[in-house]
């Protein structure tokens, strides 16, 4: 029983972080219809920005966080303006491949800038573990989860209450009408990429704080696909639920099934097996927009 609770708790924690990454992904998909395969590499860049600010520039964590967010926002804006805008309205394969190409470029640049080595992140959280009844959470997992939650709440408030957020939601609903009402669509596109880069950076910092960083960190980015498919590609609430469910699934599968199989690795593959099932049964996910198309 305690083992189960422990697995559930760390599942929720991992899931919260997945949800944070997934939200940035969903924002871009909603606004521009682009599936961003470079999410993982944007995370990696954000984590390295923060790491550099803390080690080389010796900034305190809060300042480093701000610096990383600012740099990532610049990267996001540049990516949208230089690469994605010329491809607006192109075939799906072009849009997918261009983000894959970007991820390869980012990985190479990061290896040149920071070398391929694995580095540990400076301690940013108190060392004492958080104890919730029978469950013990290492502080390196508990605090990142709180950061992820705070970021998600902030994003939600942005979409719900600000003028910009409303403009973004309007664009998602109906681009032509939004344009007719005087909303600057290009600014919305640019903003959604900035948001994606910033959330990715936050997630990258959080993941870096848990397990260290290297240019290979971006590989984690692939794990959000089951999350966003479960939640629905265009639903922010869905990303939250999908993240937590997949986090739990992954931990349960890893905890109970891994010892039974000789090679292991169930933890990595279980979400993808679930993904296939979801696509078969309910391709638009739990909360995604249901495209009605009769053939």
């Amino acid at each position, binding site marked *: 029983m305690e083992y189960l609770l422990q697995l559930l708790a760390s599942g929720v924690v991992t899931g919260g972080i997945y949800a944070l990454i997934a939200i940035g992904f969903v924002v871009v998909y909603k606004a521009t219809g682009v*599936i961003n395969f470079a999410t993982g590499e944007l995370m990696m860049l954000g984590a390295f920005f923060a790491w550099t600010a803390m080690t080389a520039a010796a900034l305190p964590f809060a300042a480093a966080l701000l610096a990383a967010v600012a740099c990532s926002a610049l990267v996001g804006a540049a990516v949208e303006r230089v690469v994605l805008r010329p*491809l607006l309205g192109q075939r*799906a394969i072009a849009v997918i491949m261009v983000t894959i190409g970007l991820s390869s470029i980012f990985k190479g640049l990061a290896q040149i800038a920071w070398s391929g080595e694995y580095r540990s992140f400076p301690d940013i959280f108190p060392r004492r573990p958080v104890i919730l009844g029978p469950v013990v959470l290492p502080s390196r997992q508990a605090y990142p989860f709180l950061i992820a939650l705070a970021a998600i709440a902030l994003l939600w408030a942005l979409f719900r209450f600000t003028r910009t957020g409303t403009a973004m939601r309007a664009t998602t609903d109906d681009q032509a009408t939004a344009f007719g009402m005087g909303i600057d669509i290009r600014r919305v596109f640019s903003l959604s990429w900035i948001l994606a880069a910033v959330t990715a950076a936050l997630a990258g910092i959080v993941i870096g704080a848990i397990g260290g960083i290297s240019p290979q960190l971006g590989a984690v980015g692939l794990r959000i696909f089951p999350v966003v*498919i479960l939640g629905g590609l265009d639903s922010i609430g869905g990303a939250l639920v999908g993240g937590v469910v997949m986090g739990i699934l992954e931990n349960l599968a890893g905890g109970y099934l891994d010892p039974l199989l000789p090679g292991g690795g169930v933890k990595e593959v279980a979400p993808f097996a679930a993904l*296939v099932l979801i696509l078969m049964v309910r391709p638009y996910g739990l909360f995604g927009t249901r495209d009605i198309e009769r*053939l």
Partner: protein
Amino acid sequence: MRIGDYKESYAADEALFRTPTARAWLLVLLAALAVFPFLAGDYLLYLANLVGVLAIGALGLNILTGYTGQISLGHAAFMGVGAYATAVLATRLSLPFWLSVPAGGAAACLAGAVVGVPSLRIKGLYLAIATLAAQVIFEWVFTNWTGLTGGIRGLNVAPARLPGFRFDTDRRIYFLIQGVLALHAYGAANLFRTRVGRAFVAVRDRDLSAELMGVNLFRTKILAFMVSSYYAGIAGGLWVYFTKVVTPENFPLSLSIQYLAMIIVGGLGSIPGTLLGTVFVTLVPEGLRSLTQVAQAVAPGAMAWFYPMRDIVFGAMIVGFLVFEPHGLAEVWNRIRRFFALWPFPK
């Protein structure tokens, strides 16, 4: 100079190579390929074999993605299925290569049919994610089904042989690989002159209209997946006899991405483009490697830049072609051809 392009029969109009010039150049190309192994060194020969194997896989992906419009991020996995099927049949049942390679193609074909089933309900970006899942799952199976695949240690396979002849060197297997490639390129080019191939193109251009014109969507899409995976499986089978060992690391997601890069650089929906793209995408990193080796002599430590630079060049190649030359090398090739068709007169 060609001043006219008159055709007097339907057969001439439907021919694969329509002008005497095209036929002459094809003969030149085939002759060059035939003498190549006797002139080239070991390294060039290795590269030619690598390009040959990958080109068969890339043809398959272009049939699926370029001609039928279904995106696949799992092409390397199908190649893996073919490779493992070939290797298992060759080691366990000691089948000769001329049975085990086609059997690998058939196994991949079946796997493709299974993965293709969701393509009726989901398309575009969703399908890309479904095939990504297939890639992850197949890779896991290759690693974990140790009883069959040998796990991470993989399987060792003896060279292919005919009575009295062993394909044990790169020079010998060159003819096998290029022969199979030529056959499959010819087959792919012909496919799009048949009803089935035309149906593929119709599904890509507008699936609803295709259905209204009497194309059975489900059958056509599954068939496209099967043909494409069959090509990948054959490539996998040849890979086994080329490298004589097969491990799960041979078929990662990055290979699937490399395949997509080949058909994008070459040109979606173009057979000659696929071949050009395969050569280009395979040789650019090798060119970069030689360049780094030259730089190493001047500036020691240049070799450390090779792997990051390879990533950057690979990414820049994809992004650059998509933004500046979306129809790929096939279009560049056509422009050159058109220029010389009227040369030396201005257009």
